[in-house]
């Protein structure tokens, strides 16, 4: 098992009238609520905490991409990755970009270039996630969700070809056209950095990831739903002629370790609630804009996410569905082991800081994860090799 430390880098300072005044922390929540001075302190702290986790012995660090939202302050994951690469030079820590939102870019070659730069500078420590971006991302750059999936596939095909085929070559596509594809530098890892496909459970994405042998990374969903998603991956892998292993599956979930169950819940809950009930809140029209996904998978996602997006969650709700793992070291370990038995993932992405969790609690969480959880997890699930591309 590879264990990653991840924070969305949330903006926790919501105004008092937030719930009455605004229907979401995305797209329409005015950026006048962003205070650059507090922002400076937050970024500094979040980056320091990630480096702290790397030094503590986590296998990797995660960054991701979201736009126009207090939910997470990383519109450019590659910038974040660049800073973390420099702060972890000489270490083996992987930097997982979870991921670049391909369809939002008019110039996918820029992603090929940036990932190659990061991979070369880090000496081959980059994991390159590719995502479509959630529905709420689509008003940001005025991109029509109707073109999202075909742009995703075309950008992916172009980037991988740019990484693996000698240039220059021309690219003639529907959305992208280039006379010369010849990016410098080429990636450090051969044939290219591992590719991950983080998703909220879209059937098409799972199928695509399994067909390519890419690691499918499940963002927080109820455990029962994830079991179905991972089963689908394994089935498609079998149809594609290989057996999916733990290295092909990743689970991203908020984890908080306290001294006791009671203390853990008491400390984590206000921050979890802000995260899931306030920062993740959005109207269905924003979450699933027209044409963002096929009618079939729209219905599936709506069913799985209803519990998250639809109504206010309690600690008990989240606990019961394993939407977060909170408790004493023994409890957290037991829950991870139980989930591992059901899901068989080989990568655990711990969201160690969420909502308004302050630095001291986030670091105590890292310390306890490192002291009590990581060693035992590695016993029942040894580190697995990177998947080979199919």
């Amino acid at each position, binding site marked *: 098992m590879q264990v990653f430390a991840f924070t969305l880098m949330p903006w926790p300072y919501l105004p008092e009238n937030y719930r009455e005044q605004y229907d979401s922390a995305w797209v329409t929540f005015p950026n006048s609520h962003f205070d650059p001075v507090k922002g400076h302190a937050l970024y500094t702290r979040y980056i320091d905490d990630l480096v702290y986790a790397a030094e503590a012995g986590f296998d990797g660090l995660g960054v991701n991409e979201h736009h126009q939202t207090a939910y997470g302050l990383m519109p450019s994951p590659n910038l974040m990755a660049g800073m973390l690469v420099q702060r972890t030079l000489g270490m083996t820590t992987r930097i997982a970009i979870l991921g670049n939102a391909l369809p939002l870019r008019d110039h996918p070659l820029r992603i090929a270039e940036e990932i190659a730069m990061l991979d070369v500078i880090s000496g081959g420590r980059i994991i390159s996630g590719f995502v479509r971006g959630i529905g709420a991302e*689509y008003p940001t750059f*005025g*991109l029509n969700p*109707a073109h999202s999936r075909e742009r995703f596939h075309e950008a992916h095909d172009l980037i991988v070809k740019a990484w693996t085929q000698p240039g220059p070559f021309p690219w003639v596509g529907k959305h992208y056209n280039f006379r010369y594809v010849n990016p410098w530098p080429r990636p450090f890892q051969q044939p290219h950095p591992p590719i991950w496909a983080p998703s909220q459970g879209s059937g098409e994405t799972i199928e695509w990831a399994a067909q390519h042998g890419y690691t499918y990374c499940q963002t927080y969903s109820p455990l029962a739903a994830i079991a179905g998603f991972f089963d689908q991956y394994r089935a498609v892998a079998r149809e594609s002629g290989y057996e999916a292993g733990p290295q092909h599956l990743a689970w991203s979930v908020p984890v908080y370790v306290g001294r006791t169950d009671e203390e853990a819940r008491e400390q984590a809950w206000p921050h979890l609630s802000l995260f899931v009930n306030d920062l993740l809140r959005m109207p*269905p029209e924003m979450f699933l804009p*027209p*044409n963002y996904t096929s*009618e079939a998978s729209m219905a599936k996602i709506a069913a799985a996410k209803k519990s998250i997006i639809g109504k206010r969650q309690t600690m008990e709700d989240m606990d019961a569905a394993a939407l977060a793992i909170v408790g004493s070291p023994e409890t957290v370990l037991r829950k991870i082991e139980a989930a591992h038995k059901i899901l068989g993932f080989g990568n655990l992405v711990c969201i160690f800081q969420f909502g308004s969790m302050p630095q001291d609690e986030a670091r105590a969480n890292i310390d306890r994860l490192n002291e009590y959880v990581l060693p035992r997890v590695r016993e029942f699930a040894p580190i697995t090799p990177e998947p080979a591309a199919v």
Partner: protein
Amino acid sequence: MNAPTRDGASAPAATPDERLVDVLGVQSRVSVLGDGPPLLYLHGANGPGWPPGLRALAERFTVYQPEHPGFGTSERPEHVETAQDLALHYLDLIPSLGLRTVCLVGQSLGGWIAAEMATLCTHDLSRLVLMGAAGLLLPDEQGRVDLFALNPEKVTRALFYDQALAERALAVTPTPEDIHAAVRNRAMTARLGWSPYMANTALRTRLRRIRIPTLVVWGAQDALMPRTHAEAYRDAIPGASLELIEACGHLPAVEQPAAFARVVGDFLSAPLAAPVTAGAR
């Protein structure tokens, strides 16, 4: 989805004739009603229907109402991505219907498509009516209603000046077929108009190419399509005039059927005063 009538059941319950017309390989569903000179009516984002104003117009014209590709139960050919693609489709529909020259009336999304058609070619068009037409993007539109961000209830409320009509529309329990059609209508509308928002930025300049008599009709209290768009269409199309319908929101054929049928019918029937020339107002 059939919009409710203002006064219950005044219109005669004539049944439209349903046809499937091959347009260069695309099967187009066309609903035909009435008697008189041919009139091609292009429906809005809510899909086709026969509101009382349109039925009244069918007493003076033979109204051909196609369902847009991708709407309702109509197929969406892969190549149809923009309002201009639909404009070409409908220019090709006219001869496919065996017609030579038609009056063209477009409502909302259909008005946008109609405007695109008239900028491309007016050989088969005699007169043009744009009603609550989408298609333009004007500066300083902050606060304009975003169809794709609103929930269906708020969209319905924004359609009407008389909120009693909105209440009546909201009280109707949709059938599964209605829901399926509404999802497809919304998806196709978003495909055409997500960004730039319900507009083709090249259209405004091209409007000067329109050389047929044109009437712009607008609900005076239209909350979905700002009045500035009506004025922009009037100002950009040579010789066009603007007719406002009072006590009316986005759907004149639903909310003011008599005024709609009179204003549109009279414009389409009036003898030509003089040929439209470039720069005429």
